């Protein structure tokens, strides 16, 4: 009997394992090998660590990475600050009857693709766009102002594209919270701030952690939004990888950058988990 279940398990597990192996593990090994290859002065293929070395020796490469990571952290923080009140309102303040409806309203914009949403923002923000048109019409502006193509508009676009991934885990973790906990704290004389910091936040912590990880990774790996909304100063690290692969034909360098992105972002997340004393396993369940 036990043996049979084991065989059954393997049969059902096989497609998943094949998927992981063929579509994730094998390509990564290939990419890793590629990142260790290079050419010597005569154009012969050799094994080398040059591709990794050039990341640290060329200032613009690691500066771009540092910039990208900093902005990704900022976006994660802003997304949390904006989404948390919304999630709290939906789960705790509004009547239960409406909370499902409000959640769906929140999800609605994400039924269209990211590209369409970004173009929507561009139509709103550009110099000849909707917002400028309105402000001019109301006489608040004399001259149209360029609202697009700067870091602020880029961060806003990134926050907007990743809000969903923060909202859903927050809502689900706050939903499980017993309202009596808050009431009891009130009865015992706790202030609103204390309740928020010592009851609500710790309870929502796994949701916050998993939301933050997803938002951080998605922002770090985003290509479209920084490229379209960011303008002339918005060199994002993914664009750097794209340029190596596509414009410079240097796949080896691009592969090395890809691995460095994977490694460094994992490192940042690990550090974040250690600092906030959160457990990855608990956050993901």
């Amino acid at each position: 009997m036990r043996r049979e279940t084991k065989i059954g398990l393997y049969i059902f597990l096989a497609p998943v394992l094949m998927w992981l192996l063929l579509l994730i593990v094998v390509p990564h090994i290939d990419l890793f090998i590629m990142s260790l290859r290079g050419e010597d002065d005569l154009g012969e293929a050799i094994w080398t660590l040059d591709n990794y070395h050039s990341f640290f020796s060329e200032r613009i490469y690691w500066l771009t990475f540092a910039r990208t990571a900093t902005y990704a952290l900022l976006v994660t923080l802003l997304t949390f600050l904006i989404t948390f009140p919304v999630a709290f309102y939906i789960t705790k303040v509004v009547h239960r009857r409406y909370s499902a409806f409000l959640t769906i309203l929140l999800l609605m914009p994400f039924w269209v693709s990211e590209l369409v949403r970004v173009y929507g923002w561009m139509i709103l923000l550009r110099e000849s766009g909707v917002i400028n048109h309105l402000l001019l019409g109301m006489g608040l502006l004399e001259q149209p102002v360029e609202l697009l193509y700067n870091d602020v508009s880029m961060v806003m676009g990134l926050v907007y594209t990743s809000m969903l991934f923060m909202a859903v885990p927050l809502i689900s973790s706050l939903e499980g919270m017993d309202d009596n906990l808050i009431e009891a704290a009130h009865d015992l004389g706790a202030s609103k701030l204390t309740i928020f910091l010592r009851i609500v936040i710790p309870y929502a912590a796994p949701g916050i952690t998993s939301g933050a990880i997803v938002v951080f990774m998605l922002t770090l790996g985003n290509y479209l939004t920084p490229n379209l909304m960011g303008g002339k100063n918005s060199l994002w690290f993914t664009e750097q990888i794209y340029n190596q692969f596509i414009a410079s034909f240097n796949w080896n360098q691009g592969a090395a950058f890809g691995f460095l992105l994977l490694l460094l972002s994992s490192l940042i997340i690990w550090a974040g988990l250690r600092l906030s004393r959160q457990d990855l396993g608990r956050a993901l369940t």
Partner: protein
Amino acid sequence: MKKTVLRASIVLLALAASSTSMAQETLRLLTWTGYAPKVLVEKFEKETGIKVELTYSNNEEMIAKLRATRGAGFDLAQPSQDRISAVQAKYKIYQPMDYRKIDASQFISSMLTAVQDNTKVGSDSFAAPFCYGTSGLIVNKAKARNAKDYDALLDPKYTGRISYRLKRPTLIALAFSNDYDPFASYSDPKAYKVLMEKVGDRLISGKPLVKNYYANGDALLELMRSGEVHVALGWDNGGWKLHDENPDIDFVAPKSGALGWIDTFAIPAKSKNVEGAYKWINFMLKPENAAYFTNQEKYGTASKGANEFLDESIRDNFTRSFSAADIDNIKWYPPVPAKLEQIEGKILDRVKASR
């Protein structure tokens, strides 16, 4: 129960059989936006029964896509003629073109010979011409009457009203306007690097003047159309399209020479429909089809007999933007040797990262 299962499986089998017998011959075309107008695709499908699948791309992505599959996945590609020989020598992604299978009488013969020469690797050539055009300035003359050469892109007079792509044509154009000839140092990577670094420095110091580095042709048209940009580096056909909408905007052949390119047909190494590819080439070069394409998209055509089918406005566009001297001054791209892309890539990254 058993009977229904049996019946269902018979139906399924029948469906599978019919879908394979109905499987149509397809031609997977890797091309640029606008190079396969819908009307012509439908006409071709009707004439030959071959279904055309389109994938839009640009030079760099075409090469990357074909390189990733070692020349599989597409039956016909349309790279620029200067981006073929070095790539072919290194990655072997195309197959030699069989010039007996294309109707040479339909081509402007000097152009066919030039492309054959420029795409030669060993004893084989790899491409046939499709269309040509130039890059130069697109100018809103109501706002920037005096923009006559590439250095207008670095002119503080137009601060915030300038746009170009951060791609190699920009580097090359600005080198020409500085009285260098970048094509002359193509064969000397070291000299080329020194030259391009100078151009890169100029781009960095000119960065505060730029509104935005546009990402594609549509974005450029929108920037010009809305009046947000007055001077841009762009393609002649884009300028002429805008001229139709707004007579103030036009293409200007720069004083130091418009950059001339020819886009081609090349057959990927693992094309599954080589015959269909040749059919498409011959179809697109037929005078009336080529003329339709040119009237629609305003690119010059490599088809010999197309002239008599062209709209009057096409000729007007050309004579308005190009004097006889401008035509002589067009700098045609020679084949790009390997390695230059990496030099350029690094400089362009530096420009984008600078503050």
